[in-house]
C-alpha cells in the first residue's frame, strides 16, 4: 500500500514524542532538569525522550581525561612557598605541534648556572590546539591539561597569551580534577622514591660494609 512506509516512519516519530512525556512522568518527584542526576541520566545509554542539555544553566560534567588548555602545576611546602614542578627542560615547547609555548630561563647571578625553575612561561591559548602533547610528554608531571573551558574574553592581544602567573595552579587543584591520574602518578613516584631509597640504602650499606670489611678481616685474625 502506498504510504505505508510514511505511516511507519510517523509511528517512530510519535513514539519519540510520547517517550519524552513518559520519561517526565517516570521522573515525577525527582527533578529531571537542572540536577546532576537528571543530566547524567539524559546522557546515559538508557536515555529516552529529551536528551539535550540546557547550557549554561545545565552543564555536562567533563570526564577526567578531558583536555583544554594546559596549566602549570606547583607544589606548596610547609612554609607556604611555591615551587614549580617545571625544570625548563623544554620538551613541551619542542613537542608542541602549533608551537604555542615559550619558556624564559635564567641563570643564578652568583654561580652562573641555569636555574631549573623558569622565570616565565607563556602559552598562547589562541594558537593552542588542545592536543595534550605537552602534558603527555612532560617527564616531571609539571604541565597538565585543564578542565576549565569557559575562557572567552574581549581582547585577544591583551588576554590570550597566558603567562606563568596565570598558568600556575597548585597540586591540589590537579588532584581535584584528575584524581585517577594523580593517584597513579603519585604511586609511581612513591615506588621510584622507595627504589631510590633502597638503592641508596644498599649503596650506603655497601659503602659502610666495604671499608668495614678490611678492618674486619684483621679483626677476625686477632
Amino acid at each position, binding site marked *: 500500500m502506498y504510504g505505508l*512506509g510514511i505511516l511507519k516512519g510517523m509511528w517512530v516519530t510519535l513514539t519519540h514524542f510520547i517517550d519524552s512525556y513518559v520519561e517526565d512522568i517516570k521522573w515525577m518527584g525527582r527533578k529531571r532538569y537542572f540536577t546532576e542526576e537528571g543530566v547524567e541520566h539524559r546522557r546515559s545509554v538508557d536515555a529516552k525522550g529529551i536528551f539535550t542539555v540546557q547550557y549554561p544553566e545545565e552543564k555536562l560534567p567533563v*570526564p577526567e581525561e578531558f583536555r583544554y588548555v594546559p596549566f602549570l602545576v606547583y607544589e606548596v611546602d610547609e612554609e607556604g612557598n611555591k615551587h614549580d614542578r617545571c625544570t625548563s627542560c623544554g620538551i613541551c615547547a619542542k613537542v608542541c605541534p602549533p608551537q604555542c609555548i615559550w619558556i624564559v630561563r635564567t641563570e643564578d647571578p652568583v654561580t652562573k648556572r641555569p636555574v631549573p625553575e623558569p622565570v616565565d612561561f607563556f602559552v598562547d591559548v589562541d594558537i593552542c590546539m588542545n592536543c595534550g602533547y605537552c602534558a603527555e610528554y612532560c617527564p616531571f608531571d609539571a604541565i597538565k591539561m585543564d578542565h576549565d573551558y569557559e575562557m572567552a574574553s574581549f581582547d585577544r592581544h591583551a588576554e590570550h597569551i597566558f603567562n606563568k602567573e596565570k598558568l600556575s595552579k597548585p597540586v591540589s587543584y590537579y588532584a581535584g580534577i584528575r584524581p585517577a591520574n594523580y593517584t597513579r602518578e603519585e604511586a609511581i613516584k612513591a615506588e621510584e622514591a622507595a627504589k631510590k631509597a633502597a638503592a641508596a640504602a644498599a649503596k650506603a650499606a655497601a659503602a659502610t660494609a666495604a671499608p668495614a670489611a678490611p678492618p674486619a678481616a684483621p679483626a677476625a685474625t686477632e
Partner: protein
Amino acid sequence: MSEQTPTAPAAAAPIEKSEVEKRFLDAVKADERAGYVGYLVETSKLVDVATAVRDEMGYDYLSSITAVDYFSDAPDAKNFIEVVYHFYKSTGGGALELKVQTPRDNSVVASLTPLYPGADFQEREAYDLYGVTFEGHPDLRRILMWEGFAGHPMRKDWKEAFYEDEAKPFKNRWPEGQVYRIEDRNPYNKNNKYPQGFDPTNFKEVDDPKLYEVLERAAREYTEDIDTEQVVVNLGPQHPSTHGVFRMAVRLDGETIVALKPVMGYLHRNHEKIGERNTWTMNMPFTDRLDYLASMSNNFGYALAVEKLMGDKGTPPERAQYLRVIMAELTRISNHLWAIGFLLNDLGAFFTPALYAIEERELILDVFEATTGSRMMCNYFRFGGVARDLPDGILEKIKLLVHDRLPRKIDELDIYLSENELVRSRSEGVGVITPEEAIAFSTAGPVLRASGVPYDIRRADPYGIYDRFKFDVAVRYHGDVYDRYMIRIDELRQSLQILGQALKDLPAGEIMNGKNPYQVRVPAGESYGRVEGPKGELGYYIVSNGKGNPARYHVRAPSFINLTILEKMCVGQKVADVVVNLGSIDIVLGEVDR
C-alpha cells in the same frame, strides 16, 4: 630483468613485478633507492605503460597521484620532481607503484585523465601545488589556490606568508624563549608575494574566466530539440546544502543541469606543507583536523604509514591493535549516522532524522571524550600503540552501546526511513553510477560499493588485525542515491559485527610498544598507508629522509577524489538533485580542501 631490488619486500606481489619489468624492458626499471619500492617509468612511455597496466594486468583502479619535490640547496644536488602513481586491482591485492621524474624548471608529464578519469582532480592538485603540467589534461586549472596565485606552494623553496623556519621546533620558543606573535613581527604584506604585474591596491574582482569557459565548452556538447537560453548559477560557497564552504558552478537549461564544475579550496590551509614543517609526532593531532567527523580513522592511516617505515619498533601490541579497531569502527558508526542524518536533511526531511542519528553519535563521542580527552579531535594513536587505555567503566559503556542500544537504534532508523515512499521517490534512480564508472573515476568507500563493486580495503588489502574478523563487505547494485543511503545502514550493521568480535577478544596487556618518545626516528624511505575510512580509501603517502620531519607528507583524501564523479552524476538531472547527489557522496570540507 634478472636484477632484484634488495630493498623491496619480497612478499609484495613478486609475480607482477617481474611481469611489469618483462613487459617493458626499456621503459621501466625497479626503484633501487633504499627504502623505496615500485618502478621508475620513462617519462615519454608513461601512457603506454599505464594503458598496458590497466588493460593487460588488471590494475584498473588508480588510487593516488601525487608529486614529490626532491630539492636541495647543495650545488651538486640532483633536483627533480617525481610524480608517484599508486595502482590497485579492483579485485583486491597490493599496490603497483609507478613513478616518473621530471625536471623542476620545466615539469611536464603526460596526463592519465583520458585513461583514468579519476586522475582529473589529483592531477590538477599536483599542477596547482607543484607546478607539474599534465599534457593532454582536458581541464588543467588550479584547484585549491586561485588563478593568478604566485608560485606553487608545495615546492620546497616556496615559503608561506608567516614563514618562521624550515622545520619545527622553532628556536625562539626554546631555548630562546622570546615571546611574540609572528604576525606582529612579520605583518601582512611584508612577506606576501604577488604575481608579476599584479597590483593589490588596484585589484578589481573579476570572475573566474577559465571556469566559465570550461562550463561553456561542456554546454556545447549538450543538445536539445528546442533552442533555449542557458544560465550559469553558482550553488555555494555559502549554502547549507554544501556542508561547508564549497561551490558548484552549474550551467542550467531550465532546471536541468547541463554542466557542473566543483570549485573548492576555500578551506585550504596547506595541510601538507604544515605536515612537512612538523615533526612526525606533531602531525598526529593535525590529521584529526582533516575529516573532523572521523578523526580516529585519520590517525589510523597516518600511524600505519609511519609504522611501515619504522619496522618492528612500530608494531603495536595486541591490546592496542584491538583498541584501534574498536575506535575505528565506532568512528565509522558515528560518521555514517551523521551522513545519513544529513542526507535526509538534503532530501528535505529537515532535522528530525538528523537529530535522531546525532543522539546516538553523541553517545559514541562521549566514549571518545572519556578515553582520549576530546570528542572530535581525538589524537589517540601513537606510533606503535595508542595514547591511553580505556578508563574505568568505558568498556562497559561500549558494550552496552554495541550489544544493546545501537542495533536497536539502527533498526529504528531503518524502519523510520528506508521504506518511506517520499525518500524512495526522491532518491531511487537519482545520480546513478555504473560499476565501470565508479572504478574509472577512482571513487572509494560507500560510493564505490553502492555501485556494485565489493571493494573494501579491510578485506581487499587488510591492515592492522582486520584479517581476524568475520564480516561481510556491504555491497549494493543500483548505484543510485538510495543505494548509497542503504549501504551506510548495511555498513553500520557490519561495523557492529566487527565491534562485537573485537570486544569479545580484547586482550589485557600493554598499549604501547616500548616507550612513547616525543621524537621518533623514522628510517629513510617511502611508504603508503591506507585505511578504509568511513568516506572511502584514506591514504597517506610519506617520504622520509631520516630527519625529524617528513620530507613529503601527502593525504589521499577520499571526499576530495569522490567529488571527481559529481559532474557525471548530476548532468541531465534537476537542480534539486544536485544537493542530494552531493549529500550522498558525504564530503567533509576539512578533508576536501586540506
